[in-house]
């Protein structure tokens, strides 16, 4: 069963997963993951490469749907709705649950068109409204000041860190409540990484964030809660301060003290 006790009494939960297993064909990648994601907190998923943390993250907005012969078991509730129930509108789900990828992937279009992409495909045509959304999203992603004079420039001309913040702005423009981040800073230099981490700190007041990272210092710096994955299983989930000072499981302790992984 899912443990509620590690969270404050009045903490609202946004995502509840119950016994989630995932299969790539015949290979099982996740084994019965039951995890709560608290609202407007940052939850970090850590663990060695291949432990299933990214696979789990990609179950939360059904990005794994695109993998042939894959299969999900168990139940994932987002705002009390079963997202794998038949008849679920994946488009609506992904509007609610935004995603930022490991490798920054701006489209080879202008900065403006990148951010406006989501609102446009969801039917927003009003140029004034689009301009508002673009500005607001870029501001939220802390990149507005750097790009406001060249919104029509190609996004490929931005630096790696700027590209990643642009991708965050693009995800925010759709108006999600939850933001999934798959190692968003692993391809960036320390300075750009710091800016992303600062940004996560600002975003957590308005968004529920789930971040996958294999940088433990980063997890310690940005997250409120940390879940440790190992070989497709959830070993332990607790308040980040407790995980890093006083883990209950030996495997967790071995991992965070650098004995493996």
């Amino acid at each position, binding site marked *: 069963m899912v443990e509620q006790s590690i969270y404050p009494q009045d903490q609202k939960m946004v995502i509840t997963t119950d016994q989630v297993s995932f299969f790539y064909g015949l290979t099982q990648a996740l084994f019965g993951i039951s995890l709560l994601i608290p609202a407007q907190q940052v939850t970090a998923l850590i663990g060695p490469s291949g432990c299933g943390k990214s696979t789990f993250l990609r179950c939360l907005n059904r*990005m794994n749907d695109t993998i*042939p012969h894959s299969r999900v078991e168990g139940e994932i509730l987002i705002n009390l709705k079963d997202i794998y129930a038949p008849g679920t509108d994946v*488009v609506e789900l992904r509007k609610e649950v935004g*995603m930022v*990828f490991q490798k920054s992937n701006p489209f080879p279009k202008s900065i403006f068109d990148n951010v406006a992409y*989501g609102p446009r*495909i969801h039917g927003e045509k009003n140029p004034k409204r689009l301009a508002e959304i673009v500005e607001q999203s870029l501001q939220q992603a802390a990149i507005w000041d750097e790009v406001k004079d060249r919104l029509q420039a190609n996004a*490929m001309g931005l630096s790696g860190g700027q590209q990643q913040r642009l991708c965050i702005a693009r995800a925010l423009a759709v108006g999600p409540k939850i933001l999934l981040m798959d190692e968003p800073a692993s391809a960036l230099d320390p300075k750009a990484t710091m800016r992303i981490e600062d940004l996560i700190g600002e975003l957590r007041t308005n968004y529920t964030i789930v971040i996958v990272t294999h940088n433990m210092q980063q997890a310690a710096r940005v997250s409120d809660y940390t879940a440790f994955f190992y070989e497709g299983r959830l070993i332990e989930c607790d308040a980040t301060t407790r995980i890093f000072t006083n883990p209950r499981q030996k495997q967790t302790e071995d991992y965070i003290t650098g004995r493996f992984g």
Partner: protein
Amino acid sequence: MKITDKFILLFLRLITYAIVLVIGYILFDIIRNGASALNWQFVSNFPRRSGAAGGILPAIVGTLYLVVGTIAVSLPLGIGGAIYLAEYADQGRFNTLIRLAIVTLAGVPSIVFGLFGLGIFVLFCGFGPSILAGSLTLACMILPTIIVASEESLRAVPKGFRDASLALGATKWEMIRTNILPYSMSGMITGSILGIGRAAGETAPILLTVAAFYLPRLPKSVFDQVMALPYHLYILATQHPEAERIRHMQYGTALILLLLVLGLSLGAILIRTHFRKKFRW
């Protein structure tokens, strides 16, 4: 560098030069003998005396119509098929069969396409020898080229663009339309134009489906027969009673055909550079 390495390098270099030399000689020969025939009358007049005199206007127009018809048929079909294969089809047995069929189609001799066109489009569909039947036949012939080129350029679009569109709530078709097709367009169009350039120069497929031996007027509808440059060239060079005396007409026709195909390739290059500049990643 070792002596064997030097030798192999020299050998490979000579082979490459030899290829260029052959092409260069063909071009040189055609230009040298054809340039004298080229003038405004030659490209704007109707032929006289079974093509021994006058110009080749109907053959130019006929080939242009065939090129346009072939593009109109093969581009949507080929690109559509490529989208299916690259974006929708899984690696199942049926799709393996489709791929095998496409590869086989690419290897079918062009005269077989001609006979196929005669059987299906000219006779069975009742189009008669016509621009329509000829274009459809040529389109069938270059479909594999277009499908393979288009599929490759679709697959070359990075996975990140696909992931990002889907994660923003795009449906699969929205993703393809907004974030795959625009970036793969240049590859699809250049590949297709090169295929169409080949179609423009083919004789066998049009021989039985559209090409007229001698028809000194312009077509009025897609159900009309036309003259075409490659077939006209073949007639002038091998079937004409005065073949020996009209070498300049033959070379002139060859040169025009060559310029047309070269023009198509040049167009392909221009389109590619245009799109390359527009979408860089």
